Structures are given as structure tokens and as C-alpha cells.
């Protein structure tokens, strides 16, 4: 009994450490975002006087609102396309036998490890030339590209776990491989697809390098890039509170999403890794 309680206490302490590790830095940003200008430089972890002005301020800031719209729009479009294209490829990889399969996998792996900065110079130049610079498609294209490897790998893992006998049965009943895919497998695969979509959206939402390199105005600049260009009201005032509030605004929805789908995301992130 005594030993049990000690074990529980020990695990409690260890868990608390992990919790602090994960949450303290986020709470600090939250705390900054609720401080008023007079106390923002006081260094206290907990605000001494609370205010919502920082949040009101950023939603009155057209550039930030526009950045949010861009982030959501570009992120959603990229995710949808990446999932569409990636599902097709992942199905082929998981289910079909065809020459060139290893090439597709190898190539997407290459992209996953690719240093994005190596694309910035040529894309900057090419996009300027063909008019994609500072446009939505100018960001959507690279985002799809870097979301695809993740999509293909994660989805193909999910697809392998689907009871494929059903597909066989459908084929016996005279369905073409495409009909079997569309009518039988796609509904079964939906949960995996949703998980993958969340992961892909996070990749797009989190991007910063492309967002600051391939845009030049709020026409296409996403929220993280907008935040990094926030200006204070005068030359000598740092927009700390606004940046903290904006950081919370772009963080909280994703964190809530991730927490809500926690179980699926953990399996999505890890399943590919060990079963490969």
C-alpha cells in the first residue's frame, strides 16, 4: 500500500514535469497577450492587470485580418488539393503493383527531406517571371508539394489497414478497380483522410519561409508572416502585446484541433514510422 502510494506520487511528479514543459511557454505568451501597455515590460509571469485590448487591437488591424483570411484560404486549398492528389497516389502505392512505385515513394521521401531554402531563390525568380509572385497560387503550389510526402506516406499506412476483402468482393461483383476505390474503399478510408488532412493543414499553416519570401503585401501574406512584420505605433514602441495576442490567435485553434483529434494524430504521426 505504502509502496503503491509512493509510485503514484513519483509518477505524479514526473507527469507534472512533462506538463510544465509542454505548457509553460504557451502560458507565457498568453500572459503577455493579456497585459496592458503599462505592465507589459514588468517581467511578471502572471499579468498584474488584465486587458483584452491587444485582441481588440489586432482584429481592428486590416493587415492581420487579411493575413488570417490568406492563411485559412491558402491552407484549406492546399490541403484539399494535397489530399485529393495524395489519396490517389497513396491508394496506388498501398494497393497496386506497378513498375515505378518505388520511384514515387523515393521521390516523395526526397521532398520530405528537401531544404526549403533551396527552393526560395529559384521560385522567387520564376514566380516573378510568370506572375505568381505575391499571389495565392504562388504559395499554394509549394505548400501542396511539401504536404504531399506526408499525405502519401500517412495515407498509404492507413490504407493498408483497411479490410481489402471488401474491395475484392466488389470486383467480383463486376466493379472496375476505380469503382471499387470510389464506392467501397473511400468511405472506409475517410477517418484516415481526415487525420492526414489535419497534419497537412498544420504543415501549411506553420510555414514561414515561403510566406515571407514569395509574398510582398497583404494580398497573399499569411498570418505568421504578417505578425513578424507588425509595427508599433511609433518608432520606439515594440508591439509586444499585439504580437503575443496574434500568436495566440493563430495558435489556439490549431492546438484545440490537435487536442480534439489527439488519438488519431498520434497514430497518424507514428504509424508510418514503425511499420515501414
Amino acid at each position: 500500500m505504502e509502496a503503491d502510494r509512493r509510485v503514484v506520487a513519483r509518477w505524479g511528479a514526473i507527469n507534472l514535469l512533462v506538463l510544465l514543459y509542454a505548457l509553460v511557454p504557451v502560458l507565457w505568451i498568453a500572459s503577455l497577450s493579456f497585459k496592458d501597455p503599462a505592465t507589459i515590460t514588468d517581467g511578471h509571469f502572471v499579468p498584474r492587470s488584465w486587458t483584452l485590448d491587444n485582441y481588440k487591437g489586432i482584429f481592428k488591424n486590416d493587415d492581420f485580418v487579411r493575413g488570417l483570411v490568406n492563411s485559412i484560404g491558402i491552407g484549406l486549398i492546399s490541403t484539399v488539393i494535397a489530399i485529393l492528389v495524395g489519396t490517389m497516389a497513396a491508394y496506388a502505392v498501398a494497393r497496386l503493383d506497378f513498375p515505378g512505385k518505388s520511384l514515387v515513394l523515393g521521390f516523395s521521401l526526397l521532398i520530405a527531406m528537401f531544404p526549403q531554402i533551396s527552393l526560395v531563390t529559384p521560385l522567387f525568380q520564376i514566380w516573378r517571371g510568370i506572375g505568381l509572385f505575391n499571389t495565392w497560387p504562388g504559395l499554394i503550389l509549394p505548400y501542396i508539394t511539401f504536404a504531399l510526402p506526408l499525405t502519401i506516406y500517412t495515407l498509404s499506412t492507413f490504407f493498408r489497414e483497411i479490410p481489402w476483402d471488401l474491395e475484392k468482393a466488389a470486383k467480383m461483383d463486376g466493379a472496375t478497380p476505380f469503382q471499387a476505390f470510389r464506392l467501397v474503399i473511400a468511405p472506409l478510408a475517410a477517418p484516415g483522410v481526415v487525420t492526414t488532412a489535419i497534419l497537412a493543414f498544420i504543415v501549411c499553416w506553420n510555414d514561414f519561409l515561403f510566406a515571407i519570401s514569395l509574398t510582398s503585401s497583404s494580398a497573399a501574406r499569411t498570418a505568421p508572416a504578417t505578425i513578424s512584420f507588425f509595427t508599433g505605433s511609433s518608432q520606439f514602441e515594440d508591439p509586444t502585446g499585439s504580437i503575443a495576442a496574434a500568436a495566440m490567435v493563430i495558435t489556439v485553434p490549431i492546438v484545440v484541433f490537435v487536442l480534439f483529434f489527439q488519438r488519431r494524430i498520434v497514430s497518424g504521426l507514428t504509424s508510418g514510422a514503425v511499420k515501414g
Partner: protein
Amino acid sequence: MTTATRAEPPADPGRRAQSEGKRSERNLGWWLCAPAALVMLLVTGWPIVYSVLLSLQRYDLRFPDRRGWVWLENYVTVLTSPFWWQAFGVTMVITVISVVLELVLGMAIALVMYRTLLGRGLMRTAVLVPYGIVTVAAAFGWRYAWTPGTGWLAGLLPAGDAPLTQQWPAIFIIILAEVWKTTPFMALLLMAGLALVPEDALKAAAMDGAGPWQRFRMITLPLMKPAILAALLFRTLDAFRIFDNIYILTNGAQGTSSVSVIAYHNLIGGLNLGIGSTMSVLIFVTVAVIAFVFVKGLGTSTPGQSGGRR
């Protein structure tokens, strides 16, 4: 890459015989993969070639008239520049230290999540918070935390210390930010690896009198080796291209540039497409070498996980 030693779909002798079905399967496979392959090729293939072409030219946007072929001169310039090598060194230091820390810390957190008796779900949920936060947002948090006056962490330092304006303290903070953000990802990968270690083997070893540390070292670690190597490969390459954290925390001041940051500065700040492209090519080559060493030298089998975090 030697990736595709994946499970083939079970052969079905009845159907296999029909070459008609086989050909349609092959065609379907190609058609399904074509869009993905096309997009990836289009966005990376041509730019890489173009990047190599640009790296052989003198091309500074501020002097549009003086553009011309200089062949390898840009490479000589970059490879003899102390700034480049400093950035390269800093990147290496950040990569090695942060990956090692992530491995150790990630393993610890993985063990906690896997073995804890209380609130397993809560633990797994909490560690996803750093994963879900936008890197730039987190980096601002760290920056303000270490800003004298504003920050709660800076308050712990002697007055007048501004760690972000000194080279080594700043690098340390960059590593801290990087490790905090990515360790949970590492921990999740390692936890999946832990699941592969059979309980029976651990129990048997315990019967034979092996202590917890011995069991971990003799049984858990060897069995997890593939998972560890795969996680290391992806994190190493990911850490090598570090950009967001440095851009926000120091923007490369005081010798804290990584190769990605210095390439960005030469392109966007310096408008020097020739030098910028040369750096792009060099970074690409370095990443290829690292991947090669991992795959050939250490026998990492690349997994189906892409770590596409940024």
C-alpha cells in the same frame, strides 16, 4: 532511395494470371500517381536545375546590366567566405546539440507516456501542444521571455544581461526553442518504437536479474534501433534547415546565422541571386550527403514518416 521494400499486396494467383488485369492495374497505378509526381517534379525539379544555372552567373538585381556567366566564381566566393563557414558551423552545432537533446529528452518523455500509471491520455495530449503551435508564435514567446525587462526568464539573469545579443547565449536559446518545439514529435516516434518491444523479453530479463537500466540498454534500445535511426535522420535534416526560430530570435545577428538564414539574407536582403543560388545548391548537396551517410553508413531504413513539420 532504398525505401520501397514495402509489403506488396498479397498475390492473388487467380487474378494474376490475367495479363489484362495486370496491365490495367499498372495503368491505374500510373494514372493515380501521375498528378502527385507531376506537382512535386514541377515545383522542385525545374527550380533545382534553374538554381544550378543561376549559381553559375553573376546576377545581382541591383546591377541588372552586369549580369553574366561566371561559372564557378560564386562557389569560390561562398566557400572562401568566413561568414558562410561560420553559418555552416553554427548550423552544425545547432543540429548536433539539438538532435542529441531531443533524442535523450524525447526518449524520457516517450517512456513517461508509455509507462505512466496516471493520466496517460492527458500526457499524450499535453505533449502535442508544442507540436501544434506555430514555430513563429513560439519563437516570439521565447524572444520576449529572454528580453531584459519584459521577460520572466531574463529576470532570472544578472541585470544588464541581454542573452539574445550575445553569440553563444543566443545560440543556446535558439537550441532551446528548437528542442522544445520538436521533442514531442521525437517522443511520439520513439513511443511507437517502444510499442514494438515485447513485454515478455523484458520480463524474462528481469527474472534473470537485469536492472531497469540494463533492460533498457540490452533489450529496449537494440530493438528500437530502426525507429531511433529513422527519427534521427528526419530530425537531423529538419534541424539542419532551421530558419524560423533564428529569424525571429536574432535574425542572424552576432554570428547566429544558420545556412538557411544566410542564404535568405543574400537573396532577399542582398538581392544577389547568384550568391543566393550558390548557397541553395550547397545546402541541397549537404542535405543529400547527410541523408546518404545515414542510409548507407548507419543502415537507416527510411520509414513511412515524413516529419514534414515546417
